[in-house]
């Protein structure tokens, strides 16, 4: 059973509280939206789920085993992280960049195998960047770069995708492509994605589950359709929210 569980989890950044007594289970097949104001601690929570931020109280389990009992190397086979920003002090080729995702799967003494190359190439095909293998990464556009980093994550092939604002500053088509991609990864390949995002409408449309970090320091988690209401969104955004319903769709607006 693939599951990532938090038990009475309390996280701090200095004295600021990110979440308190959070008990949740992220299961395979689920696509989670993580929402909250800027600076509320979304990135910190994502980091904590990858054992990259100290836990104040409570514990996190991956497949019934404490997260802190895993070695970093083993953890990387299970959990992948898409960072908000990347910089390129030493830009390399697109293919080499995507191959870095294979790192946790290659034993210390070995070179990348044909299999690793195939995984990388397939990942590039998935994001439709297979014709860019030899381009240097810093010559690509913002959207193309994001797709390369997503391909790297796909090549890493973990059970959990921790996505830190994967669609920020992208055009609408790119946003839809990326969200559709992860939705199908969850539904068809039985992965679990946890994604921080600011747009409630996109979260409503793509994510079956949501974790809302409210402005008062509390949090609400559950099925998106159950918990995402004008009332909870107002508590989250600290701004009056209107809701429009049309056919089966719901639209939130400020």
């Amino acid at each position, binding site marked *: 059973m693939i599951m990532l569980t938090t038990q009475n989890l309390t996280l701090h950044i200095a004295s600021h509280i990110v979440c308190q007594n959070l008990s949740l289970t992220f299961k395979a097949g689920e696509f989670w939206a993580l929402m909250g104001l800027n600076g509320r601690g979304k990135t910190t929570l994502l980091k904590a789920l990858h054992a990259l931020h100290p836990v104040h109280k409570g514990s996190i389990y991956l497949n019934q085993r404490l997260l802190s009992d895993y070695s*970093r190397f083993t953890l*990387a086979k299970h959990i992948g*992280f898409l960072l908000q920003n990347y*910089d390129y002090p*030493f830009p390399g080729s697109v293919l080499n960049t995507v191959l870095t995702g294979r*790192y946790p799967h290659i034993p*210390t003494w070995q070179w990348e195998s044909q299999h690793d190359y195939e995984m990388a*190439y397939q990942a590039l095909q998935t994001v439709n960047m297979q014709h860019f293998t030899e381009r240097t990464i810093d010559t690509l556009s913002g959207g193309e770069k994001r797709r390369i980093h997503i391909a790297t994550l796909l090549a890493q092939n973990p059970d959990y995708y921790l996505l830190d604002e994967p669609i920020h500053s992208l055009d609408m088509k790119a946003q839809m492509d990326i969200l559709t991609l992860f939705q199908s990864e969850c539904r068809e390949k039985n992965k679990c994605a946890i994604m921080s995002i600011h747009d409630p409408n996109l979260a409503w449309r793509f994510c079956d589950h949501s974790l809302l970090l409210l402005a008062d320091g509390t949090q609400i988690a559950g099925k998106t359709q159950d918990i995402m209401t004008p009332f909870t969104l107002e508590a989250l955004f600290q701004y009056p929210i209107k809701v429009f319903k049309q056919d089966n769709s719901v639209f939130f607006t400020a």
Partner: protein
Amino acid sequence: MSYYYPDKKYSLIPFFLLLLLLTLSSFLFSLLYGSTYISLDAFYSLLQGNATPLTHTLIYQLRLPRALTAFVTGALLSLAGVLMQALLRNPLADPYVLGLSGGSAFFALLAMLWGGSHFWITGSAFSGALLSTLLVFFLGKKQQQLPVSRLLLTGIILASGWGALISFIITITPPEKIHGMLFWLMGDLGYSYNKPLSLSYLILFFGLGYVLLLSRKLNIILWGELYAQSLGINSQAIHIQLLFLSSLFTASAITLAGSIGFIGLIIPHTIRLLIGSDHRFLLPASMLLGGSLLVIADTLARTILSPQQLPVGILTALVGIPVFLYLLNKS
């Protein structure tokens, strides 16, 4: 669907053969040229065991040890450069950026000022380099972490502190000793024949082996701490290893030849421009190119104004910078 990608490790074989050829030629160049040219014929008969005692001494006691020292020094500095750049994720980092040369120069000059023997000068240069590394490490550390930006800032500040102390020493030094100090500061391979080279060989040999084992991690470290950690690397441990390995390499190089600039900056970048940033290739290639460049530069340093010799640091700059700028422009 199957996709085949030509394996990089075989496609680079010609490049490495070329580098080996360059290394061999640089040694031949340095063995044949000097105050007097030794012809290939004379060199050949030397190899067969019949040569004049002068030729024998020139080659075996002067030029060969000097070329070997130059090679090891250049190789160590290039490796240290690669490691520093990976550690600081900064293409402008060089072996000296964290104040290593400053620390070792200060202690070496202090030893010179007190009229210390050669042993004392090299010994204090080495301890100075290690001391400044420890200073950077402990001052840069914060809550059991070693943030790279803080490390860099600490290093640069310490470097300028060392710089002030060096200027102080030079100011109070009697003029007749200044020349020796300047030579040391610019790098000098003139004393290769009585240096304990074997320790440096060991450091280079085992050091290279060790960093090659780290090389796949280094490829990922370049992407930043968080990313490296998310891919399963304990970046903290790697950073500490990198700091101490690069310091050890730099300190050994300084001990052999004083402080020689530019090599650690130019060589890794030249290789990057030629074959990319994969450390599995970057490290050995930088070692070969850095070693040969210093062998060539040192041969020029002792021949172009013969019988005078120049500090080799001047030549590495004069040879290295145009080549580097050309490559940078072409890429």
